[in-house]
């Protein structure tokens, strides 16, 4: 039998609900009740007082992990290239930003850190300094046992120089502390009607054609699987019959299963932000994904 997936949820799923109708403990409760074993957070989001949470906050964090029986999976962070309108980060500054988040992720028990680098082009070529930020932190990441993993996110497909650049870096350094995170939004093959909390006007949509779906062939996952360390199970809308309206899960799950991946599928809901909608949408996705994994294991599809 193929390896089993681990199931988690990102608190990103609950944006807009979070802080209004949902506390951090509520988020733990909702995640735990799906049967998930992992919690993913936004570093500068759920961590009050970021980047230096109080000891009271830290005590509460570990107490919640224990009470709800969840393990910290991935912490998202940002390396804001354009620090001000007139000053871009230097190598030293960017390295320090990444180091700060690595140490914080480790302190909270996370095994993965997703840094979001600045980009310089329409197809999201990362700023050239990313490589220096990461390389200068490889020893620290090794010592802390944290894997840094930038995400492969629409509109960047798998066959793209961004992905090649990350893979070349892994091959050149031989590191085990840097890998790829795949956001399943790259497999979206039907247009979105809502995009998270953003209200998209025609002007914005013109700049973001990827909202119609870039429809990466799921089979291409097999080409990069050995570098993939984490999967954000991005989705936007699952209807009352458990049909996802944008992501073709069956071929996606098939490809991921055949690759032998046994890490997390961490739910990342990015649909309409009506109050309480995300909570049930995440539950629907967990039923849908578990059902497909079971059917694959039973040989009902290949």
């Amino acid at each position, binding site marked *: 039998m193929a390896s089993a997936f681990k199931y988690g949820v990102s608190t990103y799923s609950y944006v807009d609900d979070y802080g209004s109708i949902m506390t951090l403990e509520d988020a733990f409760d909702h995640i735990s009740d799906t049967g998930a074993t992992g919690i993913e957070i936004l570093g500068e*989001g759920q961590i009050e007082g970021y980047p230096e949470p109080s000891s009271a906050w830290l005590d509460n964090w570990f107490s919640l992990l224990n009470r709800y029986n969840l393990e910290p999976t991935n912490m998202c962070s940002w390396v804001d290239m354009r620090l001000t309108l007139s000053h871009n980060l230097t190598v030293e500054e960017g390295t320090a930003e990444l180091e700060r988040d690595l140490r914080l992720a480790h302190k909270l028990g996370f095994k993965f850190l997703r840094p979001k680098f600045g*980009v310089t082009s329409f197809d999201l070529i990362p700023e050239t300094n990313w490589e220096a930020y990461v390389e200068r932190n490889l020893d620290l990441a090794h010592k802390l046992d944290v894997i840094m993993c930038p995400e492969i996110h629409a509109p960047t497909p798998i066959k793209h120089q961004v992905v090649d650049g990350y893979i070349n870096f892994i091959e050149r350094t031989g590191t085990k502390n840097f890998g790829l995170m795949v956001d399943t939004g790259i497999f979206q093959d039907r247009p979105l009607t809502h995009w998270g909390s953003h209200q998209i006007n025609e002007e*914005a949509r013109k700049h973001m054609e990827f909202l119609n779906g870039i429809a990466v062939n799921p089979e291409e996952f097999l080409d990069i699987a050995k570098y993939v360390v984490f999967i954000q199970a991005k989705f936007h809308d699952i209807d009352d019959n458990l049909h996802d309206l944008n992501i073709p899960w069956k071929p996606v799950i098939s490809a991921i299963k055949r690759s032998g991946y046994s890490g997390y599928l961490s739910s990342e809901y990015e649909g309409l932000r009506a*109050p309480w909608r995300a909570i049930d949408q995440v539950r629907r996705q967990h039923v849908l994904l578990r059902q497909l994994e079971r059917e694959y294991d039973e040989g009902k599809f290949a």
Partner: protein
Amino acid sequence: MLEHQLIQSTGFRNFGPAGARQGFAVRIRIPNYHGTRLSQLDGFDVTLDGEHFDHEVNRFGIRDEVYTMAQMREETVARWGLLEWGEILVDKPGGLLPGVHKVEVLARIRYSYFPPDVHIFPMRAERFATICIA
């Protein structure tokens, strides 16, 4: 706790001395899904009952500090946390009359990881909100 929408009901108020109000404040939650350095915000346009107030002029208050647009653009240390509210301070001598007003906000957020042409990303919201005290 915050209200779900960007523009909050509570905190929509006149500021300045009673009888000689200097303007009005619009309380908002952060127009982003994570906390942010203030330098990553590029101001807030406000349209109140059809009258436009530009982001270059409006100020921003958070905790006990008030920032002009120029100050906010250079503020790389102070941050706006996800669970904190901030307020847009709009100069309007005399303030607003008690009652229901149409409030529109266009928040300009900077995302280094968005393509250069939408690096300053606009987020719009509008609602009716109520001034209680003249």
